[in-house]
């Protein structure tokens, strides 16, 4: 079974630029999550999708971050404009519907903002 795919794996941008990350969940997984993991900390949930809809985006900085999940499969997370404090690993995870306790994580995208 293929795992959660993410791209790119690494990205370096300057502050005020924009960036987008892509995630392809495990086939059949209705729920998709984006986490931000700052160095030395645990992952923090940014947004949770269930099919096309948003379940939780309470910790998403909506003035600069946006995410979409068209057709309930792939998802993109965008940052515009980026700030230095956005430097982190962005993890995507997926799970079956209502199985938030059983999440499968992708390898992550390491973002460096200079």
């Amino acid at each position, binding site marked *: 079974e293929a795992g959660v795919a993410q791209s790119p794996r690494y990205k370096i941008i300057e502050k005020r630029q924009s960036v987008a990350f892509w995630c392809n969940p495990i086939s059949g997984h209705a729920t998709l999550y984006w986490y931000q993991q700052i160095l030395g900390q*645990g992952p923090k949930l940014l947004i949770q999708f269930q099919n096309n809809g948003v379940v939780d985006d309470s910790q998403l900085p909506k003035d600069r971050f946006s995410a979409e999940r068209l057709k309930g499969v792939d998802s993109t997370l965008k940052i515009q404009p980026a700030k230095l404090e956005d430097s982190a690993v962005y993890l995507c995870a997926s799970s079956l519907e209502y199985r938030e306790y059983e999440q499968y994580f992708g390898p992550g995208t390491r973002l460096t903002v200079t």
Partner: protein
Amino acid sequence: SQQGEEDPQALSIQEGENATMNCSYKTSINNLQWYRQNSGRGLVHLILIRSNEREKHSGRLRVTLDTSKKSSSLLITASRAADTASYFCATDRQYTGANSKLTFGKGITLSVRP
């Protein structure tokens, strides 16, 4: 805010020794999980213990849960150099009527010296 708090923050042991890591949390939970993260990689699920369970084993892993103290411990027996990684506890608690939410602690860095 992060629900789980692990201690110690860092642990260094000799190969063959046992490693004990602790996690405390604040609110009632459905279950508690432990994850491992190797440097530059995604999170790997290790073990889950439900709120009505007190102890669980999986291979060299033993996890305990004390809901009265809101704490959990992860024991890795006969450690190996390959166990070197960051370990996170994550609490799963009800978020909406149908959905739950996974919240991660800051993690423990385990170094196993050959």
